[in-house]
């Protein structure tokens, strides 16, 4: 296969948004038939780059050549017709239509009717080894199946280049393997794939070439593997080198050393029973980091929501320091000394259109209210203190949180809770979609909370993270606690076994 033909080249592409330079002189060449990794922290400019390619944004300057054709202005539909498809993280499918209808949406006439559309859809799905019925509604599909549909849709336009934006974020390990197999097949067929991801393991497993982007600038493009004269493949760059390029400095460890300050029982949870959970009982110690391990949908989030009072649970008894707490709504949970950093920071955590200050002080305004009036100078102080303590990167406390990167948004919610200093802080996926550098800062924060006598419940889909940070781990499967482990003595494999059930 010809490996040196350039399918896409971007040179000196610039893009500014009001007040932000999103891309500076970005230059990339993508060779035909390769899987080209694109890595960078959140807000580094990956999505801007892709959106310029697809025509969602217009570049300010620079040239883009795709498949020998110079592209000045383009729209998403023109790009797709040219053979350049993008599969977004949150998918672009109509839930109320069937698989076949989605693949050929708006092109039934070209396909000579719905019947033929379904027939053609079947062929496309078969070609990537998927067995989804084309008459199934998209709303009934799992995330991985939706991805298959998106890939088939891209193939239906006979795409030469498919861009996948964080395709692994909602997949299980098995589904991920399946995706890798499909991507490898595509490469065999000469289709080029740009693979955007945070997860470095995936880059090493899948990609031929990787481009690192930071602060809107391309740092470097390198072959992932080098092949010596004898034909042996060796890594051309190490994991740590890649991380260093992404964040612009070296980090020694991915996790800080776990704190060891677990003391006596602080909270005793008895009998959570909801439609999804059965007989959940456990204890949380003072100064302990307790990890919850389980698949997405196993009931981890439901457990902590019930404890915090966000969901109703029958017969639930919570003893904090031996005293029974009546928690019926989140406000009661907060009063009982519990804080919750919710799973979805944009939908459940932040008021995106409000300022950093408003978001930080949300839960502590009560403390600085006298006769119903909020003391605004104290409020300013709180915001400034937390911005400094957590080193939140924001132009000013008045900046709207929606303009911040994911990591800084998460820090705003952390700051909100640290300000009222709860005894128990529940962190539901605190590092999801957050770049490596900020992740480390969040781990250090978690450690500090435990060292200062607070207890933490840590939920994460990233197993290494839970195992490295927790003092104790509970495995949860289908709404039940299936095991309790000490992550220092038990292997990750054994724990995962219990979590899968």
């Amino acid at each position, binding site marked *: 296969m010809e490996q040196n033909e350039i399918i896409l080249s971007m040179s000196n592409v*610039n893009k*500014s948004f*009001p007040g932000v330079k999103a891309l500076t002189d970005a230059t990339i060449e993508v060779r035909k038939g390769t899987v080209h990794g694109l890595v960078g922290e959140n807000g580094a400019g990956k999505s801007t780059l892709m959106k310029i390619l697809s025509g969602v944004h*217009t*570049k*300010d*300057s620079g040239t883009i050549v795709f498949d020998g054709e110079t592209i000045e202005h383009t729209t998403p539909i023109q790009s797709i017709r040219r053979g350049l498809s993008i599969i977004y993280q949150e998918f672009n499918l109509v839930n109320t239509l069937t698989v076949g209808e989605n693949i050929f949406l708006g092109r039934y006439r070209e396909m000579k009717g719905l019947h033929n559309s379904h027939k053609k859809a079947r062929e496309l799905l078969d070609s990537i080894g998927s067995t989804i019925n084309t008459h199934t509604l998209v709303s009934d599909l799992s995330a991985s199946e939706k991805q298959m549909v998106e890939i088939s849709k891209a193939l239906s336009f006979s795409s030469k280049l498919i861009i996948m934006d964080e395709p692994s974020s909602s997949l299980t390990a098995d589904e991920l393997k399946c995706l890798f197999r499909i991507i490898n097949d595509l490469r065999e067929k000469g289709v080029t794939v740009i693979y955007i991801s945070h997860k470095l393991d995936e880059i090493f497993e899948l990609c031929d070439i990787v481009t690192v982007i930071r602060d809107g600038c391309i740092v470097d493009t390198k072959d992932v593997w080098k092949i010596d004269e004898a034909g042996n493949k060796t890594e051309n760059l190490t994991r740590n080198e890649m991380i260093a390029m992404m964040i612009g400095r070296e980090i020694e460890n991915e996790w800080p050393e776990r704190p060891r300050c677990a003391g006596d029982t602080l909270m005793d949870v008895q009998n959570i029973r909801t439609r999804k959970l059965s007989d959940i009982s456990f204890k949380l110690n003072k100064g302990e980091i307790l990890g919850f391990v389980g698949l997405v949908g196993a009931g981890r989030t439901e457990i902590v929501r019930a404890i*915090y009072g*966000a969901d109703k649970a029958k017969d639930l008894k919570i003893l904090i320091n031996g005293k029974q707490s009546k928690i019926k*709504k*989140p*406000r009661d*949970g*907060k*009063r009982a000394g519990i804080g*919750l950093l*919710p799973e979805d920071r944009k*939908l*459940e*955590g*932040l*008021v*995106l*259109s*409000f300022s950093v200050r*408003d978001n930080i002080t*949300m*839960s502590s*305004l*009560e403390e600085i*209210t006298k006769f*119903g*009036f*909020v003391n*605004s100078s104290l409020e300013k102080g709180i915001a400034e203190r937390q911005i400094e303590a957590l080193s939140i990167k924001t132009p000013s406390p008045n900046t709207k949180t*929606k303009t911040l990167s994911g990591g800084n948004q998460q820090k705003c919610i952390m700051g*909100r809770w640290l300000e009222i200093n709860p005894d128990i802080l529940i962190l539901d996926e605190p590092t999801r979609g957050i770049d490596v550098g900020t992740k480390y800062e969040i781990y250090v924060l978690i450690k500090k909370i435990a060292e200062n006598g607070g207890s933490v419940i840590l939920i994460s889909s990233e197993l290494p993270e839970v195992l490295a940070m927790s003092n104790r781990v509970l495995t949860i499967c289908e709404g039940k606690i299936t095991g309790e482990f000490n992550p220092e003595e038990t292997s990750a494999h054994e724990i995962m076994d219990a979590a899968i059930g």
Partner: protein
Amino acid sequence: MTKEATPVKGYLNKAGNFVLEYLVLIAILLLVIITAIIEPRFLTVENFTNIMRQFGPLSFTALGMTFIIVGGFIDLSLPGIISLVSMITLSLYDTIGEVPAMMVGIALGTTLGILNGTILVASGATTQAKALFITFGMSEIYKAVSQLYTGGSPQDRNFFESPMPVTNALSSGSVGGIFPIAFFVFLFFLTILFIFQKKTLTGRSINYTGGNFVAAELGGIPTKRIMIIIYAICGFMTAIGAIVLFSRTPVASPLMGADYARDSIMAVVVGGTSLLGGRGSVLRTVLGVSLIILLFNCIVLISTNQFLPEVIRGAVLVLAIWLDHRRHAKG
């Protein structure tokens, strides 16, 4: 496309945002200038007094509606509340006297608001769409009750025996013949509500609730209590609006509040408070009310067509909502 194009585009964008943000003020200024040129009568003291006098019922109900919309909800029950409050208050004039009757009316309006909020909370309606239908239904109920109460007949105040100095002052009293008393009552409530909105914990909590209901609830804000409070404020202000309204007409009918839900929402949105919730202020609503009053004052001065105001009213509402989306939906 050159690199030099970028800053210019940035300025244009900034200018565009500024225009969008202060569109009402610009519109008010333009309206004053244009009308003054076409019709010199516009700039007379009499017309000025007339305009201030028109800061009547709508300014009160729109102030109340501001809190509902900032809180992320909507209230279509205003016609019903106005109807029931007017009928019951007027029917008590002769038996318990003017001021006590007004107190009963205000208490009743507040209670109806609390009832609205409580029903929304109890039915688990935490979205604007659900509030729309429920409050619309409540309005129909309130109207029906007021019809039942009066047997469907209007209340004619000419038959009342008790003296009505406060009512008369509200309808036609003025300070120095220029500043209507009702206008001062309006300024009084405006000041209180302004401070309430900006400085108090409850006022701030309303913003959070409207900005993101789920996040506010998980952050420990008593969102359900806030829902009841905003409907109570709206009921309270609507009751005052109702009193100002019936003080001006010799005959009060159960259907006289019909336009007030629509007009209040229009005033709030025209002022620049977002229908998406979370953002807005009572001062913006004052601008919205001013624009609407000026607009109609100007139409009446210029044209005699009785249907023209209706057409313009509809067009302004649509335009305001369109601009609201342009302003806030673009990331």
